[in-house]
C-alpha cells in the first residue's frame, strides 16, 4: 500500500503528516521541537526512514536533528558550521563590507544514494556537507571562494542559500541559489562553481544584468529532465533549457510574477506550479484570493487553480521552500502558508483541500512518497 509523508517545518516546531495513497484522510503528528523554528526537514531518497531537520532559535542558535524511524524519534547531531579559512566579507544592505557570519541552516538536501551524506545551505550563504550522518560538517568553500562572494548581498530574509538541486543523472552537477546573489552550478561535485544568471533582469540593482546580485527566490527541476530548470525570481518566472547557462522569462499571463515557490510535476516535466503574490511590498495573494497557477506548456500560458482554495479574505504568504510534489499517479501537490494551513491536491492541482488549518506559520514543506 503506497502512502505519503509530509514533512512540515514551522515557526514553532515540526509536524509530520501522513496519509495513504488516496491522500484523503491525514494524520498529524507533532509538534516536534516545540517552540523552535524548523526551517527545513527532508528525508533521504536512499533510506526514507532517515530524516534530517534544521532546528533554530534566536536564543540558542542552530541544531540539526536526525531521525532513523521516519520522524517518530529524533536525536541531535553535530551543529558546528565553521566557514573554511578566512570567512571574508560580503556586501551589507547599505553596500558596505560585512563579515560573513553563520546564522542558520535554510535547506538540507540528502544524497540520492547515501543516507549519511547531506548538503546544507546556510545563512550567511555557503554550502556545507556531512558524509557521516551529521556527526561533522565541512564547507564546500569553492562556492564562496569562486570570486564574486564579496559582491553578494542579503535579501530581506537574510543572505541565505535556500535551494539545492543535485542532478540525478550526474551527481557531480549541483545547482544552488542564493538570495540575493543568484544561481550557481558546479560540474565537479562542488570544487568549482560558476554563476548561472545570464538572462536574468533585475531592475532594482545597479546593473540589472549583473553576473551576480539577483534575488532568486527558488529553483526547481524535474529529475527526468536535468537540463531544464525553472526559477521564481523576486519578480519574474524564468526557465533555462541549458542547465542554467541562459534564462528566458516565462511569466506570460500570470496576474503578477512576484512569488516565492515554484515546482515541477513529478511525471510531466513541462507542467509547473507557482503561487503568485501581489508584490514585494505586499506579501499576500492578489485580491485576497489564494490561487495556484499551473502551466502545462513549460511556462507563458498559465491557468488558475482555485477549486478548494480560499476565494476571499486570504492574506497569507507561501514561502520559498513550502511547496512539494509527490510521485504518485496522479501527482500530489502540497503547499503551506504563513497562516499555518497545509493545502493538498491529489489530482495535480485540479482540486485542493486544507489538510491542516491551524499550524504555526509554515516555513517549509517536503513530501516523501512511500511504497
Amino acid at each position, binding site marked *: 500500500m503506497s502512502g505519503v509523508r509530509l514533512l512540515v517545518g514551522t515557526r514553532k516546531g515540526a509536524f509530520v503528516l501522513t496519509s495513504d495513497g488516496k491522500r484523503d484522510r491525514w494524520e498529524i503528528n507533532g509538534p516536534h521541537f516545540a517552540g523552535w523554528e524548523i526551517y527545513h526537514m527532508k528525508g533521504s531518497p536512499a533510506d526514507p526512514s532517515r530524516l534530517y531537520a534544521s532546528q533554530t532559535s534566536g536564543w*540558542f542558535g542552530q541544531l540539526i536533528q536526525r531521525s532513523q524511524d521516519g520522524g517518530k524519534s529524533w536525536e541531535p547531531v553535530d551543529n558546528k558550521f565553521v566557514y573554511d579559512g578566512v570567512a571574508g566579507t560580503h556586501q551589507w544592505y547599505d553596500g558596505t563590507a560585512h563579515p560573513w557570519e553563520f546564522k542558520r541552516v535554510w535547506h538540507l538536501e540528502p544524497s540520492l544514494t547515501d543516507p549519511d551524506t547531506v548538503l546544507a545551505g546556510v545563512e550567511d550563504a555557503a554550502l556545507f556537507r556531512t558524509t557521516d550522518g551529521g556527526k561533522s560538517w565541512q564547507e564546500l568553500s569553492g562556492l564562496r571562494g569562486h570570486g564574486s562572494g564579496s559582491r553578494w548581498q542579503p535579501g530581506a530574509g537574510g543572505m541565505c542559500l535556500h535551494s539545492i538541486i543535485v542532478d540525478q543523472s550526474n551527481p557531480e552537477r549541483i545547482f544552488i541559489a542564493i538570495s540575493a546573489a543568484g544561481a550557481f552550478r558546479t560540474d565537479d561535485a562542488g570544487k568549482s562553481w560558476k554563476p548561472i544568471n545570464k538572462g536574468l533582469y533585475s531592475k532594482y540593482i545597479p546593473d540589472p544584468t549583473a553576473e551576480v546580485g539577483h534575488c532568486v527566490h527558488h529553483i526547481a527541476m524535474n529529475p527526468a529532465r536535468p537540463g531544464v530548470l525553472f526559477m521564481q525570481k523576486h519578480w519574474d518566472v524564468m526557465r533555462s533549457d541549458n542547465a542554467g547557462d541562459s534564462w528566458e522569462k516565462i511569466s506570460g499571463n500570470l496576474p503578477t510574477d512576484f512569488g516565492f515557490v515554484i515546482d515541477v510535476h513529478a511525471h510531466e516535466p513541462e507542467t509547473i506550479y507557482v503561487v503568485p503574490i501581489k508584490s514585494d511590498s505586499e506579501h499576500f495573494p492578489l485580491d485576497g484570493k489564494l490561487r495556484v497557477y499551473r502551466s502545462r506548456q513549460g511556462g507563458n500560458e498559465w491557468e488558475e487553480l482555485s477549486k478548494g482554495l480560499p476565494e476571499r479574505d486570504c492574506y497569507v504568504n507561501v514561502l520559498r521552500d513550502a511547496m512539494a510534489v509527490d510521485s504518485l499517479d496522479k501527482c500530489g501537490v502540497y503547499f503551506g502558508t504563513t497562516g499555518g494551513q497545509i493545502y493538498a491536491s491529489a489530482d495535480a492541482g485540479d482540486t485542493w483541500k486544507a489538510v491542516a488549518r491551524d499550524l504555526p506559520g509554515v516555513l517549509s514543506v517536503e513530501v516523501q512518497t512511500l511504497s
Partner: protein
Amino acid sequence: MIRVVLPAHLRTLARVQDDVELEIQGVVTQRTVLDALEARFPMLRGTIRDHLTQQRRPFLRFFACEEDLSHESPDRPLPEAVARGEEPLLIIGAIAGG
C-alpha cells in the same frame, strides 16, 4: 556539586527534568561549569556559547546569588555559595519577542 538551572528549551534538549548537578575539579568559574555541562550533555554545545569564540550567546544571561554575572570574565571564580552548591548558576533566556 554545582547546580545549574537551564532554560526550559535546553532542559528538553538535554532530556533533564530539573536542575543539573555537576562535579567540578578545581576553580569553579563560568568556563569550568560550561565545560563540564557540555561534556555531560554534548547536545548543548553551541546553544549557550559560540562554538569558536566561546562567547555567551547574545540572548542568554548568567545569574547567581541575585547578581548578573553575564559580563564577568568567564574565568572569574563564581560566588562561593555556587561553588559550595548552596545556590545554583542560572542560565536565563532573554524575555524577548512580544
